[in-house]
């Protein structure tokens, strides 16, 4: 077995990359082949003022592909899945944590993923859980509005969840056209003519809603308010199950978050959804 590389040595350097997954894989490549463990890995746009050396890592798809292929080969499929999910999560210093995990996993093999109580693995698993839970929540909490026959919705998630909810909605609305706009990550899942893609978009302007759309929204709000049993009222329980950060995009409760929003924007309930 010639495989064991020496452990990387902590180095006073910060890697910056373009923010893409391929770019990150090139940072892994750099670390493995220089034998140094950077102090931090950052996206170029939020590259900090620092006393450390900053090295800009250029995205090279050939290098990225080598790293990607090595993960299932030398570690496991599960490790690749975990790495991709955590990369989409909002874990602080996720790049460095994934790198540290990978460096160890190259030595210890696939079983590292199952050391659920390990101090280096547990944060990745909980970041993964956080993302998947948010994706599951959003499968329920997303509210579409019918705008000229197409369905549109907006979300403000903490994680980059679009790739994880895409399949669900494509299958659910396979005969429709729809768009889910992610305000946090400035991207949109667009599905039309049987094709789904995720686009980078800064801003979306939705048209006014029709009368029939407003009617269904009013019916839904009425149902929502009626179905609750007064003598059981329990706002804390509601908040545990449906955290307030989701409310701004849910028409039945958005008024409770920003009471002013509906007054400022004319045109009915839809304004708070979009």
């Amino acid at each position, binding site marked *: 077995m010639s495989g064991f590389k020496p452990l990387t040595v902590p180095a006073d350097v910060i890697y910056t990359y373009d923010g893409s997954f391929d770019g990150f894989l090139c940072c892994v490549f750099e670390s493995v082949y220089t034998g140094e463990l950077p102090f931090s890995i950052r996206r170029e746009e939020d590259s900090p003022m620092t006393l450390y050396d900053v090295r800009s890592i250029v995205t090279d798809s050939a290098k990225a592909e080598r790293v990607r292929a090595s993960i299932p080969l030398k570690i496991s499929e599960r490790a690749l899945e975990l790495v991709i999910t955590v990369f989409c999560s909002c874990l602080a210093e996720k790049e460095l944590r994934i790198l540290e995990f990978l460096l160890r996993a190259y030595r210890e093999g696939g*079983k*590292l993923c*199952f*050391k*659920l*109580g*390990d*101090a280096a693995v*547990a944060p990745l698993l909980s970041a993964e859980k956080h993302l998947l839970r948010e994706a*599951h929540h959003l*499968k*329920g*909490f*997303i*509210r*579409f*509005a*019918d705008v000229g026959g197409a*369905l549109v*919705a907006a979300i403000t998630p903490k994680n980059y969840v679009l790739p994880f909810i895409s*399949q*669900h*909605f*494509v*299958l*659910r*609305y*396979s005969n*429709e056209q729809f768009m889910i706009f992610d305000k946090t990550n400035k991207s949109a899942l667009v599905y039309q003519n049987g094709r789904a893609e995720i686009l980078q978009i800064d801003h979306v302007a939705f048209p006014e809603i029709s009368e029939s759309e407003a009617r*269904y929204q*009013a*019916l*839904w709000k*009425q*149902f*929502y*308010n*009626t*179905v*609750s*049993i*007064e*003598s*059981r*009222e*329990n*706002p*804390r*329980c*509601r908040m*545990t*199950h*449906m955290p307030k950060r989701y409310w701004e995009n*849910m028409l*039945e*409760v958005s008024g409770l978050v920003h009471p002013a929003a509906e007054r400022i924007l004319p045109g009915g309930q839809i304004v708070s959804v979009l």
Partner: protein
Amino acid sequence: MDLMEKLTILTNSAKYDASCTSSGVNRPGKTVAAGCCHSFSADGRCISLLKVLMTNYCIYDCKYCVNRSSNECRRTAFTPEELAELTMEFYRRNYIEGLFLSSGVIRSPDYTMEQMIQVLHLLRHRHDFRGYIHAKTIPGSSPELVRRLGLLADRISVNVELPSEQSLNRLAPNKKREAIFSPMKQICAETEQNRQELVIYKKAPRFAPAGQSTQMIIGASPETDYQIITLAEAMYGKYALKRVFYSAYIPAVEDSLLPALDAKPPLLREHRLYQADWLMRQYGFKSEEILSHDTPNFNPYLDPKCNWAINNMQEFPVDVNTAELETLLRVPGIGPTSARRIVIARRNGRLGLAELKRIGVVLKRAQYFIQTSDRTPSARPDKEMTVRALIDQNVYSFGMEQLSLFQDAPGPMPLPTSRDVKSITEAVEETVLCLASSL
């Protein structure tokens, strides 16, 4: 009457039904196998389905029901077309996972069922609706209609309504025990037969693929908690029910046979029943381990699992590095998820307290009951500390009105009332001392 008004009336009439789950069928995209909550109402209950009645006209006069024929209220009915369309439009906007349809009895049980079947038929065949449908069968309707309903719905349910035949005779004189259990039996048999058909022919029409469930009202009649969970256990075993729902009785109509209108719903008791129900379905507990003839009611301060644990201290400590999954599940603070994780994680190295914490075990409760690679609890744990860690803080937030429920029950002393204590902290202290001394 316009749709808005109808929806309001028929939602109001349906809202006391407890169940709103959408789990148990897997049609990728169309339904989420584990169920999906689309919203939560101000009372903290999940909204997964459009829960409405077909109509609130009713020929029956069940004492506990808002829709009883002698109650004066506005009555209306959906037409099958408008309900089907409303369901579709809500589903399209991702408001709901599907429809939960129940009904008051209009003209006759069979006529009512035919109306409901018409809605389901429109949804499934005209609108090509692939979402979730939970339909309630009407007691006393013909078996053929139950069968047709089951072929269109994902889950069907028959409410047992009250936990004993005596109570049923007293409070729901028009519903007979037989009328409730015979469809339950039939659904169970049809499901079994359907399973065999599916083996032979994969595309055989599926009968209620998400199984059947039932519901009973708690606190309108005098049964003990032990009677209730034994009944639930028997139904799980005999009719292969997927769920039993417990609904704290909320006084909606005045009647000399019922709790007064201003009585508070027994929410803590309902909560304990659900906890016991989960113990029986997910943790491998038997009803007689949770309660018995001698202690027929729940301990208000401790959840049933903790209560079992402190009364069976000889079973502990459990070694997390070697114990079977079933044994791990009995430890307070370890649930099905963390138990499974422990089993996976310990194959790759021994577990200490730090590892358990990262895995997600609630050490606050578990620490008194487990042995880890780096810690063995003392042979005689401090009772006071153990009790303090296990005490269910919910008991205080559910409010002191719960008092009356447990006053007659033998067991721990009654809850301190708000007048006796200045703060929750003091109340907790008092309870801790009291419980510890009774151990």
